[in-house]
């Protein structure tokens, strides 16, 4: 391993730029003549718009244009789309209502887009927005996930019972049969709390139109600029792809929320042509709370059947998933194909059946958020496993060991074919790190101090590297999920890699360069990573689902293969040898059995000057591209153990120890991977203890600021003990599985399993706030007193 190659903890190349204020985010982009957009949003969760009077507002100082849904319709600008078709149990397609970028006679959640004002300054735009008179006829709001289906109020005419789909996966008959034969059945009702993503950088957009060329340019906070261009061109109808450039410059965090194509960027790029000026919009934090796609929001009943020995026989799950007021770009895939196929967890479960009802409500759209479906699945499985172990009087670690999948490949009853893994190895390591043997003593010590100590496990699995195009296509995806790369060698041997992956915190500029440095034997500083601009990079699919390592880097790997192959041809001419006799290693092309060699930089120069070979026989230049379509999902898995202490007097939960042992396959940069694990756990602990988006019965978002929405802070978290086990992924050339979401997937059940262990009962929901824990602990105190 070289100091900058695969496996080295190279410091992030991009961080100097970021920490010295030199990053260039969308809001830093300022075009000559730029105007400001302000969106007038619905104050009501559900209302008919009887009229919009913009006359007085349009006459106000600085106003360049005020547009409503009618203007978009007149220009034949289409609505926002949902790119994944889900079919009902009976085979009929899901019932999707229209999703206009600006309201068409109806608003369906607080924050819904009513009109846009474009003005010289933001203050002028806001002043004018206040002068717009909207006559609303308020309608009753549907807010609660569990009560949406069949509610009197209908949100979209296309879905008369507010149900988008009734979907299922697995074998119902086999599952029912297994339950009948079971000796023990564990039943749980679970709520997976709704979350607001809260990337540090709020969403933003700058639309620009070059009237001379007839070309639109959109700068936007996107995790996948090419998909944004595809949707804005082919479905929304802004302009053909060759007339629309989308640039996602530095992006300050996404966590899924910046995958989607939203109303604001659609309107900004369209309005730039309407007003003949570049148009900028940057969300303030309140807008982010109201209108970024939220995450999770499941209500679930789940049952697990075991035989007399504790062997798991079957799993049955019914989930109601809240998709909000409209279907966001990939919303339908999250509670279906990103959820139910993970319900086998790390366990050999012969029969699984899962039903999912997806509902509309008068709340912000819900879509993928770090983990997307897999945290929800892991929460169901790991809560059930822990509670079952308790009910059977079995040690939770041993119960897991008893039911782990041991042989690979393993076909689960819910689509997935796990390729490799060693779950017992991760568990063993995690038990050592947490000092499981000492837990009894530590619990007694806590009890003496009046505290309740608990320990909780989470043996998670996820499916990443999303995903084989044919597979996702057969499941309803509107796109393939391959990735592209171009490796462009300059005449002096420096390298530019153009990738369809997008970095918004992941550190691609470092890890991708490590791969190139490692394989071409060149210094890491000679490698630049270029991404996020549809004019520079050929079509790409972007970054989400922990896919950039497994899929994005595999595309680079393939392109490098081609560069080396071409380099060998060049070297064969230069070194006057047979191509078959040329080897490439450590940055040098050599002739087998001789001391003749050509270093990589010289080879590049020879390729471009083309003096040593006939350009008709061998094309000049050294630049290769590749598309990589994965052959399977990848299956990162691991064991997290959380140990915590509850103060029953205040309800405060303090996490004392955290062991995280993950199998991510081959690791490119352990420092960056550890950082991803830390961040993921922080978000998962946030979900378990702190975060929860709450709407009141009128559909007002009560937690619309950091004053009421509790983000995890450093002092909410312990020091993490991170360990790794490695089973290389067999389906991609680098053996990578992916690490971006693991922490957020693993941690919520670990925390809740630890809290319920401490409490001695299962009656606590997420987020387990001090108030909730205090109340739940009163039962524990009386129980302790009784004992």
């Amino acid at each position, binding site marked *: 391993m070289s100091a900058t190659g695969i496996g080295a903890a190279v410091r992030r190349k991009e961080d100097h730029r970021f920490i010295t204020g030199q990053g260039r985010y969308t809001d830093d982009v300022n075009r000559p003549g730029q105007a400001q957009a302000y969106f007038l949003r619905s104050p009501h969760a559900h209302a008919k718009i009887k009229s919009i009077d913009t006359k007085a507002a349009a006459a106000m100082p600085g106003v360049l244009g005020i547009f409503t849904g009618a203007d978009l319709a007149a220009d034949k600008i289409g609505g926002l789309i949902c790119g994944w078709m889900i079919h009902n149990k009976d085979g009929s397609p899901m019932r999707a209502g229209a999703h206009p970028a600006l309201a068409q006679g109806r608003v369906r959640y607080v924050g819904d887009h009513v009109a846009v004002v474009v003005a010289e300054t933001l*203050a002028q735009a806001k002043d004018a927005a206040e002068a717009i008179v909207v006559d609303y006829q308020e309608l009753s709001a549907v807010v609660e996930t569990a009560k949406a289906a069949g509610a009197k109020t209908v949100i979209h005419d296309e879905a008369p019972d507010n149900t988008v789909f009734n979907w299922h996966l697995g074998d119902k008959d086999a599952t029912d049969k297994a339950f009948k034969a079971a000796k023990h059945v564990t039943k749980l009702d679970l709520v997976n709390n709704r979350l607001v993503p809260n990337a540090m950088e709020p969403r933003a957009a700058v639309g620009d139109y070059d009237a001379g060329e007839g070309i639109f340019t959109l700068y936007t906070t996107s995790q996948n600029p090419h998909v944004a261009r595809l949707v804005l061109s082919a479905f929304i109808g802004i302009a053909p792809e060759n007339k629309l450039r989308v640039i996602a410059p530095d992006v300050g965090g996404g966590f899924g929320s910046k995958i989607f194509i939203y109303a604001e960027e659609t309107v900004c790029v369209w309005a730039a042509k309407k007003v003949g000026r570049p148009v900028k919009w940057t969300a303030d934090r309140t807008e982010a709370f109201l209108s970024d796609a939220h995450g999770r929001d499941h209500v679930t009943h789940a049952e697990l059947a075991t035989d007399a020995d504790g062997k798991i026989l079957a799993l049955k799950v019914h989930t109601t998933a809240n998709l909000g007021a409209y279907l966001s770009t990939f919303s339908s895939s999250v509670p279906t194909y990103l959820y139910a196929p993970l319900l086998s967890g790390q366990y050999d479960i012969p029969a699984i059946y899962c039903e999912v009802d997806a509902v509309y409500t008068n709340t912000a759209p819900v879509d993928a958020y770090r983990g997307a479906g897999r945290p929800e699945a892991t929460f169901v499985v790991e809560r059930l496993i822990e509670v079952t172990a308790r009910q059977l009087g079995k040690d939770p670690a041993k119960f897991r060991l008893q039911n782990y999948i041991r042989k690979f490949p393993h076909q689960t009853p819910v689509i997935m074919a796990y390729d490799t893994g060693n779950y017992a190895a991760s568990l063993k390591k995690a038990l050592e790190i947490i000092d499981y043997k000492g837990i009894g003593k530590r619990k007694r010590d806590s009890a003496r101090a009046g505290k309740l100590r608990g320990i909780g496990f989470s043996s998670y699995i996820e499916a990443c590297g999303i995903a084989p195009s044919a597979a996702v296509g057969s499941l309803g995806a509107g796109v393939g999920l391959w990735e592209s790369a171009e490796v462009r060698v300059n005449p002096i041997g420096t390298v530019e890699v153009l990738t369809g992956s997008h970095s918004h915190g992941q550190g691609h500029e470092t890890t991708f360069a490590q791969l190139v440095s490692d394989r071409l034997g060149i210094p890491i500083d000679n490698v630049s990573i270029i991404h996020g601009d549809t004019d520079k990079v050929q079509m790409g699919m972007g970054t989400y689902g922990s896919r950039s390592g497994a899929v994005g880097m595999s595309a680079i790997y393939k392109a490098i293969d081609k560069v080396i192959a071409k380099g060998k041809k060049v070297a064969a001419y230069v070194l006057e040898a047979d191509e078959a006799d040329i080897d490439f290693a450590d940055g040098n092309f050599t002739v087998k059995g001789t001391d003749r060699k050509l270093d990589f930089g010289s080879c590049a120069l020879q390729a471009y000057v083309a003096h040593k070979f006939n350009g008709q026989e061998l094309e000049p230049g050294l630049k290769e591209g590749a598309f990589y379509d994965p052959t399977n999902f990848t299956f990162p898995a691991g064991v997290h153990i959380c140990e915590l202490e509850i103060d029953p*007097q205040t309800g405060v939960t303090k996490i004392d120890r955290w062991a995280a042992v993950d199998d991510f396959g081959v690791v490119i940069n352990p420092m960056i991977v550890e950082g991803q694990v830390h961040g993921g756990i922080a978000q998962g602990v946030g979900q378990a203890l*702190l975060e929860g988006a709450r709407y009141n019965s009128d559909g007002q978002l*009560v937690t619309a600021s950091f004053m009421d929405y509790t983000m995890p802070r450093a002092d909410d978290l312990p020091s993490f003990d991170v360990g790794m086990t490695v089973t290389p992924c067999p389906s991609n050339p680098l053996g990578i599985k992916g690490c971006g979401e693991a922490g957020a997937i693993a941690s919520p059940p670990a925390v809740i399993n630890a809290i319920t262990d401490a409490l001695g009962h299962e009656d606590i929901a997420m987020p387990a706030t001090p108030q909730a824990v*205090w109340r739940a602990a009163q039962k524990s105190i009386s129980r302790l007193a009784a004992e």
Partner: protein
Amino acid sequence: MYAFTYHKPTSARQAATLLAKKEDAKLLAGGHTLLPTMKQRLASPAAIVDLGACADLKGITLKGRNIVIGAMTTHAEVAASAEVQAAIPALAYLASHIGDPHVRHRGTIGGSVANNDPAADYPAALLALGATVITNKRKLTAEEFFTGLYETALEEGEIITKVSFPLVSKAGYAKFRNPASRYAMVGVFVAKRGSDVRVAVTGAGEGGVFRWPEAETALKVRFSPKSLDGFKHGSKGINGDIHADPEYRAHLIGVMTRQAVAQATGK
């Protein structure tokens, strides 16, 4: 934010003149409540009178048996003051736990007291310590000064210039932070001066800061956490929100009072 005129006087007297002269004028101290409210367009004063350059509103002095703190003294200055740390360490401790470092370096005692946010820390200290609020016009006891939620006895054109705290023999402050905002969800300041004991509670009351007479009586008998064993504050008149309903908040008043007494007695 809407447009406004901005004035920066250099003395309390000048500030008072501007406040009287300018229509719809607001005083700007640390600005940690006023400015966000203005940014959200929830407040739109026509004029802002910034007290930041009024040197006569700043500083901490020990005057006889009182610590006198200028209204524009920041929380960080109070927290770091050797005089305050020596005279009333619980007050320095309270100041050192207001908000975060940004807030403590901008926010001022006068601004906090004048705003009388029901979740602010200082009102509990003023009430428990028996402090006097000194304005450009008069002197008010803390009990006279705090009149209700965000309400004070301040009249038009009146500016707080100083807060004077009498020295006490023992004092302690304990708060339970709101998990999201980290304001005091319940904050209890206890103080013992001679045979008098005061317990003041912030963050919890529907009408803002208040005293807990039953706990005071118990602590007068013996100033020890044990005196409060089995003591519970009722939930009537106590705030409820998504973070803490009245029952939980009332329970926390008892817990925080015991902690504050423990701190005051070094136990």
